[in-house]
């Protein structure tokens, strides 16, 4: 019995730490959804590129860790701006075309990834070593730091959306785009910014998981699956909902994985999603 409790506590802690990283990816999706009303399928690929970026900058080219993060941040911001300009802007308002275009983009990035990076799994050595123990629960420093960075980024995103003028513009567009445009808000620029920030969040999440998982160009798929479940459970477009659901899904997957096995944990998360859809169709904190 004691062993079980201990396992659950450990699973809970790891789940929360993983959940924070899920939140980072899902928040980018939520942000873009709020403005463009699409889910960006290519988001998982940006996460993959972030992780691959760490491998190439930090392991292959031996850049310092901080420089690696800066490179990834800048490239992902640029990529976000570029994708918005090249694809999303001309398809504005065409829901079906937009989503399918993002699927196409995701396929392009992923297949180019397989061609360029190869099928060999890549491993990145830990940025930080050591283990921190809280009572009986032992957590790798690595994951703690990744989670701490995640929390800081989430706080920054809150500040951006709720404390700045750009954030106000984002919320205005989400509320009513036509009126927002009439009031002089440049919706295209705000959309570009949302894409850039969303891409950066996903890439940074990828960068911080790089030492935790083996990397391959297909890793975006699992991440995007979890993110979709999270934004459905949390409520599309709701930032706080996404944060709560991300932590919930992280914990469910981790504790479920400990008790039932990894595949069954997927099923568990899926069942939670269905229950949420039946009981609260708009998600935990979504607007109906």
């Amino acid at each position: 019995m004691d062993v079980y409790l201990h396992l659950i506590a450990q699973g809970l802690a790891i789940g929360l730490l993983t959940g924070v990283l899920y939140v980072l990816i899902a928040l980018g999706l939520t942000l873009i959804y709020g403005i463009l009303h699409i889910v960006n399928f290519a988001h998982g690929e940006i996460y993959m590129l972030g992780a691959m970026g760490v491998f190439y900058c930090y392991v292959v080219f031996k850049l310092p860790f901080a420089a690696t993060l800066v490179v990834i941040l800048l490239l992902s911001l640029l990529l976000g701006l570029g994708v918005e300009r090249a694809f999303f802007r001309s398809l504005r308002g065409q829901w079906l075309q937009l989503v399918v275009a993002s699927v196409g983009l995701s396929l392009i990035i992923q297949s180019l990834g397989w061609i360029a990076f190869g099928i060999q799994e890549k491993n990145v050595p830990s940025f930080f070593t050591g283990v921190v123990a809280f009572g009986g629960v032992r957590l790798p420093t690595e994951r703690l730091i990744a989670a701490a960075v995640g929390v800081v980024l989430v706080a920054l995103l809150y500040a951006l959306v709720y404390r700045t003028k750009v954030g106000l513009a984002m919320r205005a567009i989400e509320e009513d785009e036509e009126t927002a445009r009439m009031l002089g808000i440049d919706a295209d620029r705000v959309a570009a910014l949302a894409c850039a920030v969303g891409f950066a969040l996903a890439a940074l999440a990828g960068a911080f998981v790089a030492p935790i998982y083996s990397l391959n160009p297909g890793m975006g798929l699992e991440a995007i699956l979890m993110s979709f479940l999270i934004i459905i459970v949390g409520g599309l477009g709701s930032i706080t909902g996404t944060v709560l659901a991300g932590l919930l899904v992280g914990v469910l997957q981790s504790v479920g994985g400990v008790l039932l096995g990894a595949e069954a944990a997927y099923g568990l998360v899926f069942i939670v999603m269905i229950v949420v859809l039946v009981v609260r169709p708009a998600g935990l904190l979504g607007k109906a």
Partner: protein
Amino acid sequence: MKRGLLGLLIAALALLPPLGKPYVLHVVIVVLINVVYAQALYVIMRMGYLSFGHAGYIALGGYTSALLATKLAITPWIGFLAGGIVAGVFAWALGAVTLKLRGIYFSLSVFAFAEVVNAAFRAFEVFGGPAGIAGVPRPALLGTRLNTHLQFYYVVLAVALVSLFFLYRLQWTRFGFTLLALRTRETERLAESLGINAARYKTLAFVVSCFFCGLMGAVHVHYLRFVSPFVFTFFLSNDLMIYVMVGGLGSYWGPMLGAVLLTGLGEQLFAAGYYKSLVYAVVLLVVILALPGGLISLPRILRRGGARERVLPVAADVAAARER
């Protein structure tokens, strides 16, 4: 004229194969299977819904029939039907929950559903785990097993023609027109104000779409004589969506054109591995950005104002956001 051409095509499909090499026959079989998948997906895309997970329903159909045949020795003829029905039942269950909501919830949950189905097939020994199920038998007719390409080709052709005919006729029924009316939020409200139960129509359309995917999925598995979690993946769902979009949403013949052209092309690129998805995706983006009506709209654009075709008025405005 049109009818004559169609008759000629069907006659050619029925009579020419004995002359073809096995490889050519294989390509035609794959094309026929994909055409049915694409056409089944078109049922819901025509009403403005997008599915990232049809491969999940195809897999359900395939696994159902494979399990029935290998574990219970039930003839594939019944297995085909059972595959379609199982896929349809699962579609009903998910559709009833998600199709009341906005389109994006549906798309995302179907994607998640397909991944969970895939995980289940990988996880449980009953389904053969990651190795899948081998030795799936071909059906027998009048005491002979249809083991050659040519024999099984006629099974595929028969199932495909019946499915395609049904799906074609469906469009011109009251049901088919109602689905068309549900494709935007505004027209859906209008339809509901006329007493149409939109959620029920959408659910039924999804069930029909998945039934034919499950049916053809079962045929597909008996063609391969093998199924594993890696046969029907997310990439298949993507391919189907690409066929429909590249061919064009505006007409019944669009998805078919997309499936024929791209499957043929894909077979040529098969050896090139990841280049296939790369080429598909590039074609997709080019068509979406430069030719919103898909390839099927090309002749009409070239000779604008020419002969009137019996084309459904969907084309560009299917896109009108369901969202808002």
